[in-house]
């Protein structure tokens, strides 16, 4: 067991995970933040994507102990009090999702992408999201949600 302290969604949290426990499992099991989903455990599907120190990462490919001292944002922390930010609202308006299992990963990946590329075009959005797998939607509605969010961000 390794004692760690880190910031999750703005709050300081501590834990004592085994070194082998992934960040994904630590978030879900130890901190009860089950919004981050596990879809493949080998870094391909992107469902586990969270933001660590400003970068989107696959939490199944990080050990929890590696996040010590870091700032982590999960889907639960994007907007205060269970509300919705611009991207989430735009995705709601765009009917972006169906079963919802891939959703947190897409939302986190798109959040990180838009903050670095606020004026991305459709092809760039598709490439940025090509590391997240959705089985339900065929992606168009997700891409539309991201583009709508970018548009609304520009208008503000």
């Amino acid at each position, binding site marked *: 067991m390794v004692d760690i302290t880190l910031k999750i969604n703005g709050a300081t949290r501590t834990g004592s995970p085994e070194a082998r426990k992934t960040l994904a499992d630590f978030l*879900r*099991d130890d901190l009860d933040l*089950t919004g981050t989903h596990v879809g493949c455990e080998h870094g*391909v599907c992107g469902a586990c994507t969270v933001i660590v120190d400003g970068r989107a990462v696959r939490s199944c490919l990080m050990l929890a102990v590696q996040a010590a001292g870091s700032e982590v944002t999960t889907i639960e922390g994007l907007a205060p009090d269970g509300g919705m930010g611009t991207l989430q609202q735009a*995705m709601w308006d765009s009917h972006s999702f169906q079963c919802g299992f891939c959703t947190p990963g897409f939302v986190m990946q798109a959040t990180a992408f838009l903050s670095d590329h606020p004026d991305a075009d459709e092809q760039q959005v598709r*490439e940025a999201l090509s590391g997240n797998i959705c089985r339900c*939607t*065929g992606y168009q509605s997700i891409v539309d949600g991201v583009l709508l969010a970018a548009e609304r961000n520009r208008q503000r």
Partner: protein
Amino acid sequence: MAAIAAERYTGASIKRSEDPRILTGAGRYVDDIKLPGMLHAAFVRSPMAHARVLSVDVSAARALPGVTAVFTGADLEAMTVPGPDALMALMGWAGPTPEFTLLATDKVRFVGDPVAVVVAESRYLAEDGCELVEVEYDDLPPVVDAAFALDPGSPPLFANLGDNIARTHSRNEFGDVWRTFAGADRVADFHIDVHRHQNVPMEGRGCIASYDADLGVLTVYAATQSVHVSRIAIAMRLGIEAEKVRVVAGDIGGSFGLKIGASREELAVAAASRLAGRPVKWVEDRNENLTASGQAREESFDVRAAVSNDGDLLGLDVKMVVDTGAYPGMGAMVPAIMEAMLPGPYKLAALGFESTGAITNKASYVAYRGPWASETFVRERVLDLIAKDLGLDPVEIRLRNVAPRTDPPAMMVTGRPLVGVTSKESLERVAQLVDFPAFRRRQAEARAQGRYLGIGVASFIEAAPGPRSPEGPSGPMGMESMRLRLEEDGIVALFTGQMPHGQSHQTTLAQIAADEFGVPFEQVRVIVGDSAVVPFGLTGGSRSATMTGGVALHGARQLKAKVLDFAAHLMEASAQDLLITDGNIWVRGDPESALAVRDVARRAASEQFGADVDAKLEVEATFDGGEGGWSGGTHCAIVEVDVETGIVQVERYVAAEDCGALINPAVVEGQIRGGIAQGIGAVLLERSAYGDDGSFQSATFMDYLMPTACDVPRIEIEHLETVPLDADVNFRGVGEGGMIVAPPTVVNAIEDALSPFGVRIYEQHLPPARILQLIAAADSGQ
């Protein structure tokens, strides 16, 4: 078409009530649930495709700290009742079934076959425990090829069957097959293969089983397409009374046909929870999902087509072999639906069909979105192949063969009436949306520059639910029930056995009920996912739009009548003079009279009334599908094939579809696009691959490739004006259509792109290496 009461919601892309929780990480999937004292299970799985199990030594595993229990096949067999696969039982299967146990006992029959289950304090420890279980196997020759399975000399997987033939669907003939073929100008022979691929929902299978020994009640938190079917399957297999099993499901991360009934692993977990005396959770990982959850579509077809020189497809004679894997279930049942659907919307005069199921050392064949889809693949490929031989264009040959809409409707030679079918209109619409002559010019210019573009079309119909049949709806796919209740707080509650896993029922059904009853959308709540609370139902077969949409509509109407009868007493008016709009009940012409539905409900619940007043504001509604109807359409794809690398890009994709009246266009379009993505994935990327020795080669997402946002283009969807058949319910199912018709659409386009090379395609899976092989083979005149 008859208008629904207020029609504020039905037909509009109302935002989903599911989304706030989905978008904020507040969904509750099985793996999110934690129960006090919960343990975790992991399975020891066979690395062999076919072997006798000589011994299973669990002593080291049991001794590992953190491991609570280890159960073998024999341990669980002692506490379960043998029986067939749940879906087979549900569909009324009567044939001989292979006998098998939850965990392998004497034999393993595919790589991944579960042999023992380790229950521990965490999944990490359970997997550690699995590594310590020592199993001695005695290798047996694997049966990996369906053709070998059909050979009586192949080693039988099941002793009680004696051979590897799952079920013979004996030959049926429709129309005069002999005369049609004898009189045809041409008879063409084809062999067409569809490859093995699979559902791959983003959430795997899983459950938490919690047995309360004091009450004798087993509660299972599940991911399932029907809580009741799961309940019955679990009860049957565990020898518990069905009333003592409760299945609860929350959010489900997709299924596409996979999560129906209860898998062997889920049953093993339920049994383990009884033995362990604590709740046990098992959620499969991706490795398990790809290797062991089940696979689909591996069918091969010998097809004879009777054709006129002008391009009439007069008759088809089809022999199918289905590779059902080990532990056959759905696979052996698919032939009957395929046979019925093969004629499609065309004027086929004769059909002969027979099928055999082959048992092989592979994961079981399971239902996958449109399980009968290969009938469309075969038919739409054959039409293109014939068209090429005759020099006809693909739209032309289909227009020639499509049955026009007549009154009385044309009959499919397999017996169902093509009532209300708009296939002809869908072909014409696609031809309008896609400028074929302009494409042909662009194609020619591109070829001159060494670029290969192609265009393909395909048409289909789907019995979603299909036209009203004289016998009415039957079996578990039949009558739909719903309980509707006006709750004390004014909420109109719909209790349905539907189990949404992406279908957005909590939104769509509320739209219908809100319109019909007269309350705002937010005042309707759709309750799903608890077998103690909801009536029987199953989400599948693209039935919910009609069946559940219909029962919601009629049920809301019935509830409204009951509520108005009650309100009439409160308001001292005649029920006929009362209206409900926007959540208020009022006397026609007297807006001052308005009473909130909420207040009426509260009074019904809290006040006393005389025996002549029915204050129980609840109805049990059923719906038989009304006039039903077909869904269908025509799809068109434009592709570019890089002939140096074999890489295919889908440049444009157009769907002209008819799924009746739309409840929620955005939901409909999402379903269509998702199905098309799976079809594109099947053709270009996805294959469940077995080696000659039965080893499984696509057990991770590195090898089983899923389509991504760079593989699926924008999909243009045109909704056709539908032919209403029913006075009220003209919603039809749309869930499976995209996946049924996209594969032939894309393959037809690829063959068109490669036509300068003389390529003909008789298979569905076309990865880059295969494309180059086809070009090389055609070049060398094979």
